[in-house]
């Protein structure tokens, strides 16, 4: 009994520690916050019923993030096919980012938030797993089924795109080219804006 109750406490602590990051990660894949919460709760129930041996161990973190990812993919498969394809069929788009030497940004936080919204889905996912899930490259690779090198590249790419946005913000207010890029963003032609960069 004593043993069980300390396990229960560890379980409860894990729930409080991981609930929010897991939901936030799920929300990058599935748009409905309520569904995200349901899925995270189901996973925790499953841990209590079937995976008690993970409680109190570092492996739990990896297990939880992998489990929520699989559940989200199932969910997407049932509901929205295109997003699912984006996440499972991996191809590396080639993007050349041309040097632009601008002043430091005016609103760094705003630019970063905007950039995060526009990251390619897969790139954003890997970044979130590292930034919020605090998973290692190895764990992210296993969770998402890509190579460790690709994980590293994706996080680097996310940083680079955010860095670019931070510069671009400045660019908008200064040059006609910036205005075109901005316009391209507005009318929803991100491809066009990437072309300009």
């Amino acid at each position, binding site marked *: *009994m*004593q043993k*069980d*109750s300390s396990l*229960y*406490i560890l379980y*409860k602590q894990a*729930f*409080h520690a991981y*609930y*929010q990051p897991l*939901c*936030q990660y799920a*929300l*990058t894949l599935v748009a409905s*916050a309520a569904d*995200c*919460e349901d899925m*995270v*709760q189901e996973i*925790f*129930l499953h841990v*209590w*019923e079937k995976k008690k041996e993970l409680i109190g161990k570092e492996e739990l973190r990896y297990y939880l993030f992998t489990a929520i990812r699989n559940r989200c993919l199932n969910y997407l498969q049932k509901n929205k096919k295109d997003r699912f394809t984006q996440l499972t069929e991996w191809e590396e788009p080639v993007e050349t*980012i041309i*040097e632009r*030497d601008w*002043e*430091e940004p*005016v*609103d*760094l*936080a705003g630019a*970063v*938030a905007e950039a*995060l*919204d526009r990251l390619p889905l897969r790139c954003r996912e890997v*970044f*979130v797993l*590292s*930034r*919020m899930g605090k998973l*290692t*490259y190895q764990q992210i690779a296993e969770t998402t089924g890509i190579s460790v090198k690709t994980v*590293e590249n994706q*996080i*680097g790419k996310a*940083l*680079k795109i*955010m*860095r670019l946005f*931070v510069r671009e913000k400045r660019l908008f*207010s200064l040059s006609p080219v910036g205005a075109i890029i901005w316009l391209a963003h507005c009318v929803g032609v991100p491809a066009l804006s990437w072309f300009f960069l």
Partner: protein
Amino acid sequence: MQINDQILSLITARLTQTASPQQLEQLERWIEAAPGNRDEYDTYVKIWEASGAPLRAHTFDAAAAWSKMGPLLNKEERRGEPIGSQKPLLRSIRWIAIAASMILLAGTGYYLWTRLSTEHAVATNTHQSVTLPDGSIVTLRKGSAISYAPRFNSAQRVVELEGEAFFQVKHDGGQSFSVLTGRVEVKVTGTSFLVRSGDVREEVMVSSGRVVVTDREKGSQLVLTAGQEALLYNNRLQQVQLTDLNYLAWQTGVLEFHNTPFLKVLEDLERYYKVSISADSKDSVVIQKAIVTVRFKNQPLEQVLDELVLITGLQTRKEGEAVIFYEK
């Protein structure tokens, strides 16, 4: 500045805390190699830190979810108990045993609850003031969170912090008060100080009294008194000059500048008013050399800008939300 893939991979490793000692050394060498490199690295650090807030923007209530899950779990716990049809005597012994163990369980449960359960406070939309069980006051900056025991035990008072908060600690006999962040422990008896905990930098700034800051990984320690700051950055805990007079501005509403370079003033205003404020400093000696001494208290941005125009003789123009100072 554009960095190559190798440097990007070093920076990525540093930020994700996966860098090997050799990588850290390589990165350090690159940072030192040219003055622009450090700025570029710092920008990446800022981007990494800034990326946390939007990803955390949607908050989920773990406590509410837990109360929803609780009943489901109990059912599961009970499932393991054998329910049999034993003889009456055995059965009554069984009931006594169950009653006794329930009393024991309730007692243990209460004990553990008071010892181990945690209170959480999160400042989601505004700064938030929290009074701790001992009467100490914590002002949480928007987006920050603390957790602590609902009653402090007799030996120590411990609060865990994520983000930035100002602590006014009540003196309580000889009992110490500790703030834990990811990497740092701040230990005090009665004093006030600010802790700013990011993924890459952790800062402790002391307003009054004396605090002990410990690097929880390496064990190195610093003792700080009023007006001093400890900085944990690049794996090194060091004491630095507290130059940022306005570190408490978000809490007090007071922005103060003493012989401060104009461009630094603009940085502080930006941070405080959350509006982009810059200057066309390229050809303007005035903007580059201007030194400002002024104090604002809860003033609207327009007034502050007018005052700066008066002091410096510069002009302002607006581009959308952004404010730009220029020399006529």
